[in-house]
């Protein structure tokens, strides 16, 4: 017992030493803030986007949306127990996928456009073939011991999931089995995003931390702290060198991966609502963040200033997405509607 206690004390001392070392290394490269550096950058002015379409069809709260790679189709998930696939150019519904479990929290489109996946309080990720005559269940990925909060396809044969059981997981869709389990968070994982080069991914969790993972090695490479509550949303800056997070602490933050720290924060004393979702415009200059206050607020990524707002929903904005061609933003809400803006 005494030997074990001695070892634990030594390990704890080493932990404290390493934490101090990390903080010192971060401080050593912290030679100025991004907002100061961006002082000379021209302002974007007031960003005023119009609501071009309202997509009506769901009968209950919308929890998640994801654009297809063609920037035209989009899938949405509602706790009315349905996934709807929309043609956003016409506003028409193309496919309706009835869910076994209505408690859906996340939906994803495969890059090929052939498959969609969803999951939620059933703790499973179900993959559907939507190119069949009627949507067919391809796989039920069942191993998480907590709710499915987020899923993203790498291809038609691999999918990443984030779960309330505090882990993320890479699945092989040919076998339906887990390839890699990513363990390190100490709170429910709420959101994940794939890097542009697909070698890494980031996760945000209820432990208020964001983590960068090596997809193939299965290891956590970096941990970012600073938020004081659950991180609900996370995204990569388009060049893959920085990440943006949104939290229940009512703020968003940008962390640079190469300097390993927060470089700018996005908060406003008048904004007292949690951030539910976020997406960046194609150049990375604008952040569209959905809030519990029924709005999607627009931030200037470089200057940290609020530059616009998308108002029109009658309840919390639960999901936000920008298609690959960057031609618009889609917001989904607990009011059961999706709105397209540009």
């Amino acid at each position: 017992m005494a030997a074990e206690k001695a070892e634990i004390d030594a390990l704890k001392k080493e932990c404290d030493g390493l934490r101090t070392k990390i903080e010192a290394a971060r401080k050593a490269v912290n030679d100025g803030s991004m907002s100061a550096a961006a002082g000379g950058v021209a302002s974007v002015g007031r960003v005023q986007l119009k609501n071009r379409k309202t997509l009506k069809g769901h009968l209950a709260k919308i929890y998640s949306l994801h654009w297809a790679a063609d920037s035209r189709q989009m899938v949405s998930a509602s706790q009315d127990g349905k996934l709807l696939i929309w043609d956003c150019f016409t506003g028409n519904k193309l496919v309706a996928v009835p869910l076994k479990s209505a408690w859906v929290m996340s939906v994803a489109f495969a890059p090929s456009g052939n498959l969609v996946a969803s999951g939620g309080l059933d703790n499973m990720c179900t993959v559907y073939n939507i190119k069949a005559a009627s949507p067919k269940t391809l796989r039920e990925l069942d191993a998480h011991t907590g709710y499915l909060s987020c899923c993203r396809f790498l291809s038609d044969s691999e999918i990443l999931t984030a779960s309330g059981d505090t882990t993320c997981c890479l699945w092989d869709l040919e076998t339906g089995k887990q390839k890699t389990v990513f363990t390190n968070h100490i709170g429910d994982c709420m959101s994940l995003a794939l890097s542009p080069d697909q070698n890494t991914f980031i996760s945000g969790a209820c432990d208020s931390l964001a983590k960068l993972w090596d997809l193939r090695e299965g290891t956590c490479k970096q941990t970012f702290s600073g938020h004081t509550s659950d991180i609900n949303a996370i995204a990569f800056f388009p060049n893959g060198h920085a990440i943006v997070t949104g939290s229940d602490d009512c703020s968003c933050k940008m962390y640079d991966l190469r300097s390993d720290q927060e470089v700018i924060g996005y908060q406003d004393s008048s904004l007292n609502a949690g951030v539910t979702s976020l997406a960046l415009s194609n150049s990375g200059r604008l952040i569209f963040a959905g809030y519990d206050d029924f709005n999607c607020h627009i931030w200037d990524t470089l200057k940290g200033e609020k530059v616009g707002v998308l108002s029109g929903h009658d309840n919390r904005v639960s999901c936000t997405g920008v298609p690959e061609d960057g031609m618009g933003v889609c917001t989904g809400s607990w009011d059961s509607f999706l709105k397209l803006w540009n």
Partner: protein
Amino acid sequence: MSSKAHSSNNIAHARRTVQQLRIEASIERIKVSKASADLMNYCSEHGRNDPLLMGIPASDNPFKDKKPCTIL
């Protein structure tokens, strides 16, 4: 759980934490000024191709409802 199993769990956990922190401590870091400059450069290089920043002419707007034209 016996106290022996409990304490070996604690040790295993502490060892994993140390291993993780060693990974995170070992990375190379660049200066925030360089990181900021790179992000600013990316935005400026890609800004003119960002439809949400530049605006979209009505004729090219895929989401805008096209009003029918009447030939009078």
